[in-house]
Each structure stands twice: as C-alpha cells, then as structure tokens.
C-alpha cells in the first residue's frame, strides 16, 4: 500500500486570471488556499462565477494556475496534463462517448492503463453492480435516462480507482426527486470506496447534506471553510450567513464587549442587542447582528429583560411543517420560522396579522459579526 500524504489535494495561493471579452483581466480564482483531507467529502459551494468550477478544473488539469500551486497527494502538479494525474472527473454534462456502448465507456479508462482484458471485464462488472446498472453494458448512452447516464458517468470515473474524484455539479441536470436519491447514493458510495470526493455545487442543501466539509466561495475567494454545522451555526461573515440558509440582519454599532458576549446598539430597534462575540468585532465599530429565523422564540410576554422585543405580526405563511411569521419590530421586519408542533385547525394557532407578540433572541443563538 502506498504511503498517503495527509492531504489529497492542496491549493496554495492559487490565482487563475482570465481575459474578459472587454479586454480586462479577471481573477476567476483569487489567492485561494484549500486543504482537502484524504477520504473526505469536500464541497465547493457558491453561485455561478464564484470560481468553484475553475478550481476543480485546475485540479483535474484542464486549466493551469496563473499563480500558486496545486498539490495532489503532496506532489506539485505544475503543468502536468490531465492524463498523468491520479484524479478523475464526473462532468456536469456527463460527457459520455456517444459512439461507445456503456461497457466501452467504462472500459475506456482501464484500456488506457493497459489493464489485462480479464481484469477490465471484472472491474467494469463490479462498478456497474455498484451503480446498479447491471445488464446495460450493450446500450448506448442515448438509450439511457438522465439518471442512468449520470450513474454511468460516475462508474466510468470510479472504475479507475483514483485518489480523488472530482464532481462538477453532477446532479444539476436531474429532477428534484432523483437528485435527492442520488445525493444519498453518492454519499453511500463515497463511504464505501473511501475515495476523496471534491464536489462542486451551487445547491446549499446538497452541500450541507453530503459534505464532511464545505468551502463557501464568492468572487474567486474562499469566504469560509468548515463542517456543515460550523458553516450554518457559526458563519463568520454576513455573506456566508446570508448565502447559507436564511438570516435576519440587524445593523448597529458595538457598545461593549464582554468576553464571549458583545452588545450592539441597533438604531432601527432603538435598543441594544446582546449576542455571541465572533471575535472580529471592535468597540465603537459597525457590526451586524445575525439571527436565524428558526432560532427566535415567540411569546406573549417578554421571557427576559435582554433581547426581547415587542412587535406586531405583518403577514404569515403556512408551509405545513412550519409557519413563517413576519413581525414588524420598530422599523424592521423580522422573519421567524415557528415549527407547527400542535395539530390544529384553528387559524389563530398559526398567528394572525396585527397580533401583538414578543420576540425573544437567546444571546447564545445570536451572532455579532463584523459588518464588512
């Protein structure tokens, strides 16, 4: 067994510059550092143009960094061509060879390794079994459904047993139901084969569901890297808090910092809000209070003196499992997600417009972020 380095893939200060049609230069990837551990399910999450696909393509060897270096298994890749890298890619478009059968598609990579025919046959059989497409060997890609094509694309890359599997929005073309099924299946396959998966997606739910760690990217930069729980529960910036899930943002000025707690004066509420100090805020500077809608408690009377605000219900939306309540507090509208714990047919159970109530923000659930 080969000695593996700690990191499957490392990006060290990688920059990729493209020329825009207007002739200006654009850093599609802007000084990115990333360490992806062996055996990890790592996602790069961001909207289109954030540099996630370019990063993946540089790992695969389809593009070369303008600056910086990419290491695979501790080896600097430089200008190593794709066919000399021990990584394989599942393409967004699948890129199945239309003139080859399913069997020929999957066997292609093994033929390139000059594997003996018996071994090719056995390995193709095993991988087809893994993606549950036995008996499809003689079909052509056109004769398969979208979901089946997706599995063949996965099988074709997996059969090579690469150190790292790169997946470029592989579920993007599937319908919602199939996508959910495939998410679970992909995760199960990854755990079974133990290969490092690097997954590019713009779907935050997909990233949260499958990943061990996520890098949230925007405008060529990594905004935050961490586990799904860290990313969701402790966003370090307003961007990440707004991009992953929903958040209420209350702008204000830091009044005092007391160890783990910080107080922010929010002019729109004409009061102070206490929350967790994320360590980046400074006395007297602007800050933003960030609170998730499902972490706000609704009560008739204030629960404590701290962080309790009177308000009136503006609108409500019943969505089955939850009720989304929009409450006017001072000059702001705050969204609150209330779980429907009680089964009731009484409309009053789900709040009504104009109703007065109190919103309680637990300081430990409230984040104080530097406003940048």
């Amino acid at each position, binding site marked *: 067994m080969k000695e593996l380095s700690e990191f499957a893939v490392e990006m060290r200060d990688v920059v990729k510059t493209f020329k825009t049609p207007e002739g200006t230069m654009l850093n599609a990837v802007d000084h990115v550092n990333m360490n992806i551990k062996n055996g990890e399910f790592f996602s790069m999450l961001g909207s289109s143009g954030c540099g996630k696909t370019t990063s993946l393509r540089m790992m*695969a060897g389809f593009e070369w960094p303008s600056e910086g270096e990419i290491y695979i298994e501790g080896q600097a890749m430089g200008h190593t061509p794709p066919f000399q890298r021990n990584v394989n890619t599942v393409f967004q478009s699948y890129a199945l060879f239309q003139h080859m059968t399913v069997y020929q598609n999957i066997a292609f*990579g093994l033929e390139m390794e000059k594997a003996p025919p018996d071994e090719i046959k056995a390995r193709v059989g095993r991988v087809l079994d893994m993606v549950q497409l036995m008996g499809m060997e003689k079909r052509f890609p056109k004769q398969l459904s979208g979901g089946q094509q997706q599995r063949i694309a996965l099988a074709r890359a997996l059969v090579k047993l690469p150190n790292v599997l790169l997946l470029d929005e592989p579920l993007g073309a599937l319908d919602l139901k199939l996508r959910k099924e495939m998410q679970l299946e992909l995760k199960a396959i990854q755990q079974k084969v133990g290969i490092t998966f690097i997954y590019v997606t713009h779907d935050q739910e997909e990233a949260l569901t499958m990943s061990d760690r996520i890098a949230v990217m925007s405008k060529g930069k990594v905004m935050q890297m961490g586990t799904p729980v860290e990313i969701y529960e402790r966003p370090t910036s307003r961007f990440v808090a707004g991009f992953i899930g929903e958040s209420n943002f209350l702008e204000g000025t830091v009044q005092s910092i007391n160890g783990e707690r910080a107080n922010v004066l929010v002019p729109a509420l004409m009061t102070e809000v206490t929350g967790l100090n994320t360590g980046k805020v400074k006395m007297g500077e602007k800050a933003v209070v960030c609170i998730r809608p499902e972490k706000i408690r609704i009560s008739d009377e204030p629960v404590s003196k701290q962080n309790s605000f009177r308000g009136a219900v503006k609108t409500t939306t019943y969505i089955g499992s939850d009720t989304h309540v929009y409450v006017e507090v001072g000059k702001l509208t705050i969204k609150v997600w209330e779980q429907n714990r009680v089964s009731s047919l009484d409309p009053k159970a789900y709040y009504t417009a104009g109703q007065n109530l109190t919103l309680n923000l637990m300081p430990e659930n409230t984040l104080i972020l530097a406003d940048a």
Partner: protein
Amino acid sequence: MNPHRRHPFIRIAALVVYFFLYAPIVMLVLYSFNASRTNILFEGFIPSVGPLQMEGSLVTQSPCGAFHWFCELAKNQEVGVAARNTLTIALTSTFVSAIIGTMAALAMQRYNFRIKPFAQLSLYIPIVIPEIVMGIGVLTLFSQLFAIVNNSLGLAGDARLTLGIGTVIVSHIAFCVPFVTLVVQARLQGFDKSYEEAAMDLGANELVTFWRVTFPMILPGVLSGALLAFTLSLDDFVITFFATGPGATTLPIYVYGLLRRIITPQVNALSTIWIGLVLVAVVLLQRLQAREAK
C-alpha cells in the same frame, strides 16, 4: 385537418420545379437508347439483336440490341482512360482535402490566433470567386512556375514539368479544402470540448483522444465534407480545363470534346451510367445515415 390551406398554386409550382429538374435527365437517359445516330430526334429504340445493320442514320439491328450505344462506349478506349483519370483525380483530391480541411477546421475551433479572422475569410474567397478566374490563375501559376523551374534546373524533354494529372489534383485539392473545412466546422460547432477532456481525464493522451473520441464523433461531418469534395472534383470542368495537360483528360473534358465533333448517343450512354452510379451512391449514403441515426 392541416390548418394550412393548400393553394392550388403550390401544387403547380412543385410540378414545374420537378419538371425542369428532372425532364432533362429523363430525356438524356431516353436518348441513350436512341436508334438515330444523329441524336437530334428520338427515333425509337433499336428493335432487334443481331449483327449490326444500318439504314441511313438509323441503327436497325445491333449485337447489343437497345443497349447499342453502351456497347459502343465500352469499345471506346478513350472513355476508359478518361474515367480512370477522373476517378484517380477525384479520389486523391478528396482524400487529401478531407485531411487538410478537417485539420483546418479543428485548428479554427480550438485555437485563437492573430490571423484567425483572416484565415476564416480566406476560406470563403475561393468559394465565391468565379471558377474561370481560379482556372486562369491556376494556369498562369503553374506555367510560370514550371517555366522557372525547368529553365533554372535545365530540364529538357520528358524531364520537363508540364501540366497534367498532377496539376489537376493539386488545383482540385485547393478548391475542395474550403468546402470540407466549412462542413466540418459546422459539425464542430456543437462539439462539446468536455468529451475530449473526459478522454484525457481517463488517461488518454492527445493522440489517443483524437483517434478514439474526437475523430469518431466528427466522422459524419468529415464524410459529408469528403462527399461534397468528391462530387465537386468529379464534375469539375472549368478549373480542370485550365490545369490539365496531355494525357490527363477527364470525363467532363472528354464529353465536351465529343460534343464539339458530333453529338453521338455515346455521350448519353456515358451520362446515363454516370447518373446511375451517383444514384446508387446517394441511396447507399442515405441507408448509412439512417442506420446511424437509429
């Protein structure tokens, strides 16, 4: 019911178009069985089989019966030579122009280079330029070039470079390349580069990627480009007329020569065979495409 009302004019227009497209061909085929040597009026088929008998300008009996002119054609040595020349020229120039044209199309699709807009434009010019201009150009170029080479190397007699089958092939390649390039370029328009990336990703180097993935995928485009080149070369008259020399007569040139002397039904027989061959080729190609589409 089809919501589009059919105006009677549409049917008439279609009939007129078909008439003018196919009536000449039908006439031509019919006349290849003409009993009359002069080939001005259709005098009926040659009625009987037996030793050759003539009545004035009418053939009344022939060893080949109604196929008299086809037999006469078969005896004609010059036609055989011209047919062989034509095929040699067409096949060679098709093969070479298909390769060059495909390479050019791939280069234009893949790379950005400074003279690319010029390169693209230069593909259209030989297509729109009148053939006669190209023909004169080819003649001038080769005769000047050969004169310089012959004089400077002191070549004499048979060693002298002259116009012939070689110059015809070169000029045919030259005018076929733009057509092949444009056809292949159209095919490449929808070619997703991720196929090539996938092949390389799976361990194939550039050469293997080309032969195992790119080429099979663009092959239909290359074949239709080649077919176009083949038909263009096969019936080219103008450029061939200028570029050809002694011993390199092609069928179009030969037919033209025959017409200047006497219009014998041999020409019709030759054309009939030609049409037959083209028809078979087209049907085969359609079968092939239909099978591929499945």
